Every structure is written in structure tokens, then in C-alpha cells.
């Protein structure tokens, strides 16, 4: 048995003829992303049906809890209501990230197991960071910031600035991909071990049993619990927290 891990499947290739951008690939990543968006939006619509001021339903309580925790998270980390406009963005980032990570539980391929997704998010966050820096200190102040504390530091400052989106994207992507790889490896190795050990049984019984990966029951579920649940939630949270922190720092100048 061969074990190989490949990227997202490509369902459709649409040639665009634009240089550098290449063909538009209708990949698993995009399709699952749309599913994720549909799930989140559907959940939002479901939770906010029949809103009332008094005597609220459980659904509304959950929706209010989500909104209030998003408000509190952003406000407590930025100190004040200055970044209230960012709350839906942060919430969308967190929601998309966590649902994308957890959708691997259903057997679909996570959109976050594709570097394009995280790179897109990280670049968006980076643009917002720069926009806030420029808003806080002006273009000159922003450029001057690179020469602090001494001009010799300029290359390093530029490097550390550019490293921000790259590290954010790679951290998230690496964690999810490692989960996919390790889960796949364990599953594959246990299947091979199962067929090898059970193949020792002589006769038809051995041939039959060696085709069933009995050893693959149990351990992948435990490993999957860590990678699918814990790591997913953790990475979504880390990505969101970093976003808030970077933006709050940027606005302080």
C-alpha cells in the first residue's frame, strides 16, 4: 500500500489567460470554503430568528453570547471601543477559521489545509495593520518607524514586519497540515500493520481479515481528537488574537 498526501483536489480548471495569475482552479478548498460560509451564515440566520427584547429564547441567548464575547474579546484586548468596527471582521475570521478546521471531522478537506487560504487571511490582516499604522502616524511616521530605535535596524525592522503575515499564515497552515499528515500517516501505518499481522493467519480467514484494517480502530480517533478539536480551536483562537493584538499595537503607533 502506498501512502501519499496531496493538495486539494481540482474539480475544474478555467483558463483565464491572464499572466502570473494562471488558470482559475475550482478546487476542493474553494468549494468547502463556500460550504463553510453557508454554514456560518445559515447559523447566524437561524440564531437570530424571532429576536425579542424581553423573554428571549435559547437561540437568541446563544447569539447574544457570541456577539457579547466577540465585543468583550476585542474591547478588552484593544482597551476601549475604538476598534468596534473591527469586531465583525474578527468574528468572521474566527468563525471561518474554526468551522474550516472542524469541517475535516465530516471527511471534507479543510480549506485551511491549503496555504492559499491562510495567506489570503494573513495578507488581509497585514493590510489592515499597515492601514492602522499609517492612520496613527501618517505615511512619514510609518516609514520612520522602521528606523527606530537606530537607523542600522532598518533592514531587520522591515524583515520582522514582512515576517508578520508569513508567520501568521504558516503557523496556522502548518498546524492544520501537520494534523492531516500525522492522522493520515497513523491511519496508513496501522492499516499496513493490521494487514501484515493478520496476513500471518493461514488460509482464507487470514486473507479475509488482512483486508480489514482492524488496528486502525481507536488510536486515530484519539489523535484526531487532538488535531481536529484542540488544535483547530487553538489555531483559530491564536490567529484571531494575533490579529487583534497586531492591529491594536499598530494603532498605538
Amino acid at each position, binding site marked *: 500500500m502506498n501512502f501519499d*498526501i*496531496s*493538495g*486539494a*483536489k*481540482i*474539480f475544474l*480548471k478555467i483558463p*483565464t489567460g491572464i499572466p*502570473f*495569475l*494562471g*488558470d*482559475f*482552479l475550482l*478546487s476542493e*478548498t*474553494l468549494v468547502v*470554503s*463556500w460550504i463553510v*460560509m453557508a454554514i*456560518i*451564515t445559515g447559523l*447566524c*440566520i437561524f*440564531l*437570530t430568528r424571532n*429576536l*425579542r*427584547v*424581553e423573554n428571549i429564547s435559547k437561540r*437568541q441567548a446563544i*447569539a*447574544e453570547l*457570541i*456577539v*457579547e464575547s*466577540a465585543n468583550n474579546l476585542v474591547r478588552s484586548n484593544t482597551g476601549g471601543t475604538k476598534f468596534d468596527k473591527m*469586531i*465583525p*471582521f474578527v*468574528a*468572521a*475570521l474566527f*468563525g*471561518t477559521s474554526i468551522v474550516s478546521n472542524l469541517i475535516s471531522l465530516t471527511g471534507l478537506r479543510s*480549506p485551511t489545509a*491549503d*496555504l*492559499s*487560504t491562510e*495567506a*489570503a*487571511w494573513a*495578507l*488581509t490582516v497585514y493590510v489592515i495593520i499597515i492601514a492602522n499604522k499609517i492612520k496613527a502616524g501618517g505615511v512619514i511616521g510609518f516609514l520612520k518607524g522602521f528606523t527606530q530605535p537606530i537607523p542600522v535596524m532598518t533592514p531587520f525592522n522591515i524583515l520582522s514586519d514582512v515576517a508578520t503575515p508569513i508567520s501568521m499564515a504558516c503557523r496556522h*497552515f502548518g498546524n492544520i*497540515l501537520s494534523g492531516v499528515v500525522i492522522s493520515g500517516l497513523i491511519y496508513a501505518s496501522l492499516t499496513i500493520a493490521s494487514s501484515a499481522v493478520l496476513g500471518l493467519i493461514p488460509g482464507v480467514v487470514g486473507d479475509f481479515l488482512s483486508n480489514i484494517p482492524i488496528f486502525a480502530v481507536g488510536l486515530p480517533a484519539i489523535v484526531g481528537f487532538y488535531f481536529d478539536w484542540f488544535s483547530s480551536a487553538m489555531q483559530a483562537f491564536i490567529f484571531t488574537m494575533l490579529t487583534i493584538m497586531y492591529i491594536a499595537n499598530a494603532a498605538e503607533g
Partner: protein
Amino acid sequence: MESQQLVTIIPWTFIAQILNLFIQVYLIKRFLFKPINEVLKKRQEAADKDIQEAKKAKEAAEAVKTEYESSMSDARGEANRIIEDAKKDANLRAEELIKEAEQHASSIKAKAEEDIRLERKKALNEVKDEIGSIAMDIAGKVVEKEIHEDEHKALIDEFLQNVEEAS
């Protein structure tokens, strides 16, 4: 089916994911944050209104209480004044009565003394006359002779004068 490389950035996917993120931001804002924040705001307003109303009610109650207290203290003052007046009147009246009684008593006493004095004088005069006549009788009987009445009268008066002085 064809697969993309494991670690790669596909430009169109990258662009599509940025758009997807912003679409998601709009959707989450439109379907979660806007309605929920509206409800939260409404509830906040309702709560604020309740608090304002409660404050107003409390103020009104305080005003009523102050009014009540002031009217109570007024009434108490009035009552005290009335009692004070009544006491003063009563004292005045009592003093007047006592004074009147004293005057009455002293007038009665004076009258009684006057009466006593008059009675005594009258009695004395009576006694004086009695003694005079008795003395005349005794003298007439003792001397048994005609004595000139006028001489005797002078003699008796002199005697009586002496008696009066002695008494």
C-alpha cells in the same frame, strides 16, 4: 482527479479567499451583529428608561416625604403653641383667681375687724352707761341725800374717765 501541490499558493484561490473573507464579514455583520446589537441596544434603552422612571418616582416620593415631614413639624409646632397658650391662660387665670380670693379674704377680714371694733365700742359705751347709772344708784343709796344732779354728773364722768383710762 488532478490535485494541486500540497504546499502552494494558487493566485486565483488566494484572491477568491480574500473576497470570501470579506463576503463572510458582510454576512456575519448583516445577519448576526446588526440584529443582535439592535436588540441589545433596545434592551439597554429599556433598562435606562426603567432606571430613569425609577429615579423620577423616587424623587417624587422624596418630595412627598419632605412635604409630609414639614407639615408634620408645622402641626407639631402649632400644637405646642396651642398648649403653651393654654398653659399661659390657665396660669393667668389661676393667679387672677388667687388674687381675687386673697382680696376677698382680706376685705372680709377687714370688715370682721371693723365689726369687732364697733361691737367692742358699743359694748364699752353700754358698760359705761350701766356703770354710770349703777354708780348713781349706789351713791344715792349711800349718801341718801339730795345731791345736785349736775355736780354728781361731773363727779361720775371724772370717775368714768379714770375707769376708762385704767381699762
